[in-house]
Every structure is written in structure tokens, then in C-alpha cells.
């Protein structure tokens, strides 16, 4: 057998977490890394390879008999085992726990390797210490040494570099480098930049929650030589990190405040028609600060038209009773006074954005509500734009022409352009239109971040139920949808 084949497996790990319908084939000359948001099943897949979890459906073939897993979970189990052995409250003797040496020898097959590892990790003097007296980093090292000298034919390491100091990380990396020549390694990592060069495949996990149960699964398996997909994956990992932060607003040229008692948008009895063709009639709608809205409806029901009434791009906004971002329309306001409060992204904008311009300037143009740059940006604005590029993991490419980007990356840049000024309202007209699955997830991850992590009200138009975003609760339905 020279591959591990997981087919349509559903595996239960607790009452509230299951892996659902996962399939993959890992060839024994490959090395995989599993990435994904927290709680989406990374560790579960690692554990599954080590034989944990309760198989509910599907088949697993070719799993080697000796698999070693090092994870927080296995570390916790070892610590707990040691706690259970502590009977000091009964014996009244001070118990220092099992000696490190003893633990290391428990399943050691290759004592020569163990000797080497002890030297490398400078554990010689700690061998007779009690396990319980070790620091977290040290227990981690014990687990790693234990795993490596048990001669596994598959090594599964869940966040192995977490809690290791720089020197130890380096040592571990060189040991893995050697190990991988003989056997496959599966790593679970949180950060893209930690992925060693020799990893051949990237797995990206995602989850859905249904009631109290979360189902983890595999969204993508990408080979390293697929450059385009790799870049997107890097961005996705970046965006789904828990500690993502948004760059600040431009303090010297901030968007003016709105009166907090006013709604952001109020439409009264609004009707739109082209000639005899009525798009919609008698629409009443109010958007209050702090709400996020999704607008749904079939093709031709006027979703885009409705958004354009808000942005001022639809000329009939002058012929209707519309209050937008502090202005009753048609009373001598200029559209630039309204646009300054709005960030806007649509595929139409993407078509329009054909000027020859680099990524940095596209983002900067968001400060001026212009397509192309006609004014000089301040240093602060440039700094903020750089931070956005960093957030999207595109800072190294700042000077690349916008037109050369993939469709999905263009969309991300346009969302950043819309957000740089911290607008009161972000309007997204079918932001996933024309995107492949990976890029869709990227865009959705960014929108999700914006809904949860900023003061901006989001108006979101889309067709697909599966592109719903958790933070958007209000729904306006147009047409007979």
C-alpha cells in the first residue's frame, strides 16, 4: 500500500463536532500541511490520521500501523495522566512525577536516535527531572522526541512550532527535514509563513454550524505547483486569522460625522420605471445605523437599481423621495457629498476600472472616490493603503498593474479601496459574481470580517444562498423572490 485513501468519511469527535464527508488520497511520498480557520477541523483531521474519532460512515484505507501524533490534545493527555498518578495527598510524599527518562523510553524503538535528540534539544541534564516540573515548552519537546524515536511510518504534528523557542524551532525543522526523506509528514499550522519548503500539498478546512453541531470538512487540496491557487490560499489563511485588525482611518481627512438619530437611508414610496417598464413600485425601506442588510431577488427585480439610488448613480434618485446619508435628494447636494460616506464594489465597477494603475493607487483612489488617481495622496494615506495591502497579503505586489491581477484579487483590492476611508456604508453588489470557489471564500471572509470588525453598515446583494454572511441579519426581498 503506498497511499492513504480516505473516502467519504464522517467521523464524530464529540456531540458537537463532526468531520463530515471528507475524502482525500495522501501518497506516501507526499507531505501535507493542513490550514484553516479555528474550529474548522484541522486538528480533527490530524487526529483522524492517528486513529482517533468514531467513524460514522465511509472508509479509511492504507493507514500505517505506526502513526505518531503530537498535538495540544496529546500533550494535555500526558499531563493529565501524570496528574492522575499523583497520589501525594494520600501518601503525603512530595511526588515529582515520572522521570523524563522513563517517559522517553516508553515507546522508544530507535534508542540511537533518542540519544541524538536528547543532545540536540539539550535534555541531557533534565533526564532525571520529574515530568511535572517541566515547562510547557519542555513537555512539548518531550512529546516530539517520544514521537520521533518510536519510528513512525507517518508523523502527524499539530502546531509543532507553537511554544518552541527560536533555537528549538530550528532544530525541529532540521530533524523533520531528515525524517521526511523516508516517511510522510502531515502538519497542522496556523500560519502560512511557517510552512516548510518541502511540503507538497496544502489542505484548507472549513466548517459550517447547524444548531449546536459544527461540521468540519475539507474545502481545498492544493498542490504546491499550482501558483495561483497558492497565492489565494495564503490570503485566505491570512484573512481568517483570529487577530486580523483593520487599518485605521485617515485622521487628517476623516469622513464627516452623521447625525446619529437619522437613518442612513430612508426611501418613501419609491418607484422606478424605464419608459413603460416598471422595475419596482411603492418601495418603503429604511436602513438604520448598525444594521447589515442583504438584498435578494431574482434577476431584473431591481437590486442594482436600488443600490444605485443610494450611491446617486441612478438618475431617478432625483425624482423620488429619498433620504441618504444626511441628505434629502434633489435639494442642491452634490453627489460627492454623498459618495464620501459610501464604499462601493460591484462587477460593473471592476469593468470600469480599466485605467492603467498599480494596486497601491487603486486603494488610494478610495480616499478620493475616483477611478484612477488625480490627486496626490498624503503620507498617512499611503501608510494606510499599505496596511490594507498587507492585510490582503499583497503588500509585496503593491506596484503590480491592477489589470494583471486575477479576477478575485481585483475584487479584494476594490473592497479594500471601498473601506480605506472607513465609510458609514459599504455597498457590495454581487461581490462574488464570476469568482471561483476559493476566491469566493476569500471575498466572503473579508466581508465577514468587515461586518464583525468595523462600524460600517453593509448592504449586500447576492443571488446565492450559500454566500450568505453570518453577520447580516436584515433581509430585503425584491420582486417575486
Amino acid at each position, binding site marked *: 500500500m503506498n497511499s492513504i485513501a480516505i473516502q467519504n468519511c464522517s467521523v464524530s469527535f464529540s456531540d458537537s463536532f463532526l468531520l463530515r464527508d471528507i475524502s482525500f488520497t495522501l501518497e506516501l511520498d507526499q507531505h501535507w500541511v493542513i490550514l484553516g480557520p479555528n474550529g474548522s477541523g484541522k486538528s480533527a483531521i490530524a487526529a483522524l490520521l492517528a486513529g482517533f474519532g468514531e467513524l460514522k460512515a465511509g472508509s479509511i484505507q492504507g493507514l500505517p500501523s505506526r502513526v505518531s501524533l503530537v498535538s495540544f490534545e496529546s500533550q494535555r493527555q500526558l499531563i493529565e495522566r501524570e496528574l492522575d498518578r499523583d497520589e501525594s495527598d494520600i501518601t503525603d510524599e512530595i511526588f515529582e512525577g515520572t522521570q523524563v527518562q522513563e517517559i522517553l523510553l516508553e515507546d522508544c524503538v530507535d534508542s540511537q536516535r533518542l540519544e541524538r535528540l536528547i543532545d540536540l534539544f539539550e535534555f541531557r541534564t533534565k533526564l532525571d527531572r520529574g515530568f511535572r516540573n517541566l515547562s510547557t515548552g519542555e513537555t512539548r519537546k518531550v512529546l516530539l522526541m517520544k514521537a520521533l524515536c518510536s519510528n513512525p511510518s507517518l508523523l502527524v504534528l499539530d502546531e509543532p512550532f507553537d511554544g518552541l523557542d527560536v533555537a528549538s524551532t530550528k532544530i525541529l525543522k532540521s530533524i523533520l527535514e531528515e525524517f521526511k526523506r523516508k516517511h510522510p509528514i502531515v502538519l497542522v499550522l496556523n500560519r502560512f509563513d511557517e510552512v516548510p519548503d518541502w511540503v507538497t500539498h496544502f489542505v484548507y478546512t472549513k466548517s459550517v454550524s447547524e444548531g449546536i453541531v459544527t461540521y468540519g470538512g475539507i474545502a481545498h487540496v492544493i498542490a504546491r505547483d499550482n501558483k495561483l491557487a497558492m497565492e489565494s490560499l495564503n490570503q485566505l489563511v491570512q484573512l481568517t486569522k483570529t487577530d486580523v485588525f483593520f487599518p485605521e482611518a485617515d485622521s487628517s481627512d476623516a469622513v464627516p460625522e452623521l447625525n446619529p438619530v437619522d437613518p442612513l437611508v430612508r426611501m418613501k414610496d419609491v418607484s422606478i420605471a424605464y*419608459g413603460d417598464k416598471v422595475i419596482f413600485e411603492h418601495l418603503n425601506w429604511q436602513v438604520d445605523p448598525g444594521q447589515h442588510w442583504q438584498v435578494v431577488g431574482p434577476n431584473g427585480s431591481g437590486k442594482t437599481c436600488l443600490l444605485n439610488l443610494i450611491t*446617486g448613480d441612478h438618475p431617478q434618485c432625483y425624482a423620488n423621495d429619498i433620504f441618504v446619508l444626511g441628505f434629502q435628494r434633489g435639494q442642491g447636494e452634490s453627489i460627492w457629498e454623498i459618495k464620501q460616506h459610501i464604499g462601493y464594489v460591484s462587477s460593473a465597477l471592476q469593468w*470600469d476600472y480599466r485605467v492603467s494603475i498599480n494596486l497601491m*493607487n487603486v486603494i488610494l483612489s478610495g480616499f478620493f472616490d475616483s*477611478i*484612477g488617481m488625480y490627486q496626490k495622496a498624503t503620507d498617512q494615506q499611503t501608510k494606510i493603503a499599505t496596511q490594507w495591502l498587507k492585510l490582503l497579503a499583497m503588500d509585496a505586489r503593491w506596484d503590480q498593474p491592477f489589470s494583471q491581477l486575477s479576477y478575485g484579487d481585483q475584487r479584494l483590492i476594490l473592497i479594500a479601496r471601498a473601506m480605506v476611508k472607513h465609510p458609514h456604508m459599504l455597498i457590495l453588489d454581487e461581490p462574488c459574481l464570476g469568482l471561483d470557489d476559493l476566491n469566493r471564500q476569500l471575498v466572503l471572509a473579508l466581508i465577514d470580517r468587515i461586518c464583525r470588525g468595523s462600524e460600517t453598515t453593509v448592504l449586500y446583494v447576492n443571488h446565492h444562498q450559500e454566500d450568505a454572511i453570518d453577520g447580516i441579519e436584515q433581509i430585503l426581498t425584491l420582486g417575486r423572490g
Partner: protein
Amino acid sequence: MSNYFNTLSLRDQLAQLGQCEFMHASEFADGVNALKGKKLVVVGCGSQGLNQGLNLRDSGLDVSYTLRDAAIQEQRQSWKNATDNGFTVGTYKELIPTADLVLNLTPDKQHSAVVGEIVPLMKKDSCLAYSHGFNIVEEGMQVREDITVIMVAPKCPGTEVREEYKRGFCVPTLIAVHKDNDPRGEGLALAKAYAVGTGGDRAGVLMSSFIAEVKSDLMGEQTILCGMLQTGSLLCFDKMIEKGMDAGYASKLIQYGWETVTEALKYGGVTNMMDRLSNPAKLKAFDLSEELKVIMRPLYNKHMDDIMSGAFSAGMMEDWNNDDKNLLGWRKETGESAFENAQNTEQEISEQEYFDHGILMVAMVRAGVELAYETMVAAGIKEESAYYESLHETPLIANTIARKKLWDMNNTISDTAEYGCYLYNHACLPLLSDFMTNIDTDVIGRGMGLNDDSVDNQRLIDVNAQLRQHSVEKIGQTLRGYMGAMKKIV
């Protein structure tokens, strides 16, 4: 009515012709305030009317439309344009008397009739605006004394005026106040506010005069802008066919070639366009263009002279009174030309290939731009005007050819420009026939195909110096530099 320009003394003629100044952004600090709360009524809702009106309204001004009765009754396209965009539309009688500013954006040919009809309805002390001074300058229209007469002329087709505004930019614009009609001295303030309303201030505004605008506009559009491109298209196409080249390739090379080579003008003038060629090709293009300049100079002079004397407009007005017989005939002829009817090949032509295989086209553009510019400046028009009416607008017109060949160009430009273009074309075709007999596909269609790109150093230095030191290059650099702060950062 008689030609206004011809009624002036030479001193006045020269003074007005020589008026053209780039206005500093700080002169527009007052924004649209001079028109805020006033009633703007646009006459006509075509290319300029609709698009200027949309911009003005989006800038916070009160805009409505008045159309001739028939257009309203028959719900013509102009009526649809206005109502679909949520504007109020009314008859002259309903709206003109309420207007503080009337924007006359009907075709130039109709101006005498339209202005004759609306002026009596206009409020006392109101203002009448044009986007082209033909009616005032060439037809000598006299407007009631209490009315202020101004001009705000975007240097682009209407669709472009709108698209650029939506992008947060606009198109360069000329403004002027008619000296004879500025009774309260408010003309300039109104013209500036109007220019801000269309967005023009973001791209650069030139303070001009009615006369400078008309004479330079006519000269530019007849010669380099439309005339040269039309003549060049026909000659180059026929030459390639004569030499046995594929018609589909020839058609495509010309249709998109003008746009591609003139795009280079936008960034760095004639110098940059010529620099896109290999050294031997550049020297070749230079020689051809020098030859063309000698052959065509008398024609450019004649056009300028006829424009100055009023002979051109008199001739055209005669055709107007003759049911446009010449114009319609020439239009039909253009529609039937071999170039116009050839199907383009599917074959890809790379950007550089348009230069390499279009050496003669590059030479024609250089010759036309420099000749038109030199002729205008020699006639007393300021360098700034001459630059805008020649080099600056060439890529814009070339874009229309890229869309739908000569038909689209002649459809987009005004009837006046179209008439002048045909005049030029008919004179220029025979003028260049000898020159064309010596032309082969190395300069149009196939490229020079040299393995060795070496040239004589001294000669290259001389040619480069001549290109770079031309006055159109110097003023171009300054004007493009002025726009620096506002310019697209590319």
C-alpha cells in the same frame, strides 16, 4: 447678421485671437456657488446637453430641459433622454422665462433659429451659454443687451464628459465671456461656476475668447483631427490593397492603428510617439513627415485663411441653405469607401506591431499635428489653444475610428467638423497622389524587416533634437505638467 470677427479692428481681432490662459485651481475655490439656487434650463438634450446636464445636477445645481414642441409631442430621443433621467421637461414658453441661465446645446446649424426664438422669452438680466462660439463669431448673432453671454466648451464628446465626471475627473474645458454681452461683469463668475459644475476644473480650464475658440476649433477639426485621419485611412488602405495585402489585415491595422499610435501622444507628445519606433523606422518616419509637411503646408494655410476670412463658414452656410447637398453626398461617399466596408481579420496585432507596420501613419500624425499647430500659431492663436486643438484632441478622435471607423468619427463630431473634414479630404487626396506612388509596404503594412537596427549617430541626434525642440512639444510638456497635480497618476 454678418461675420462678427470681420467687424472687428485688426487690433481687436489679434487681441481676442491671442487670448488663452491656463487658470489656476485656486480660481475655482468658489465652486458652483455663483449658480447655486439658480435655475438652469438646457435647450436640447443630445450628446452635450444630456451629459453636461447630468454632471451639473450631480454637482448640486437645479437643471431642467426645454425642447422644441415637436420633440416633446413626438417623444423623440431627446425627450426620452431627459425624462428617463428624471429631469423636468417643458416647452420654451414654460421654462425659458423661469431660467437664470439658459444653456444652448442644440446643433450649431440650428443656433440662429433657436437663439432667435428663445432670447425674447428670456428673463431680464439672465445669462445665455454656448459650448461652441460659431453662432456668435461666424454668424454674428447679436443677443439682447441685458443678457450675459458666456461659453463653456468641454474639449471632448459628451459621453466622455459624463464618464470622466463619474470617475471623479473631467475633460479640459475652455471658457469665455462675450465682451459685447457682459453688462454686469458677472460673466466670468458664471462661466467658472458652470465649468466647476461639469467637473471641468478638475482637468484644467483655459480662459479663452469666443473668437480664439472658434477659429482654433475649426482649424483643428478640419485638418489634423478629422481630415488627416480620414485622408490617411483611405490612402493607407488603398496602398496596402494595391500591394496585394490582405484587406482584413489592412482594415484592422488602420482602424486601431490611429488609436494606438496617438495614445503615445497623450503621454509624451510627438517625441514619445516617434520614440516608439526603432531607430531606422524613426528616421524613415521623420523623412516622410518632413516631405508631407512641405506638400501639405499650402493646404493647411488655405484652411486657416478661409477660416479667418469667414469664407469657410460662408461656404458651409450656403450648403446648409442648399439642404446639405455637399455634406450628405460626401457622407455617402465615405460610407461606400473600400476601407469602410472591409471586414477586419481575426488575427492579433500587437501594440508594437501597430507602430512597426504603421510608419507612414506615424509620419502623417506628426506632419498633421505640427502643421496644424504651426499654422494656428502663425495666425495669432496662442500656443495653448493651438496645442489643445491639435495634439491634445487627436487621440480622442482616433478613439472614435477605433470604435466604428470613419462612420463613427463623422457621426460623433459636429456637422461643422464633418463638413470641414470632407473639404480637407477632397483637397488632400489629389495633393498626395504623387507622394503615394513612391510608398511601399515597408512603411505601411509590412514593416521594414531589417535585421540590423543600426543608424548613423549624428543623424539620429539631429532628428531627435528637431523633434524635441518643436514648440508643440515645449508647450505640451508645460500643459501636461500643469495638469500634474490633477493628472491621472499612471
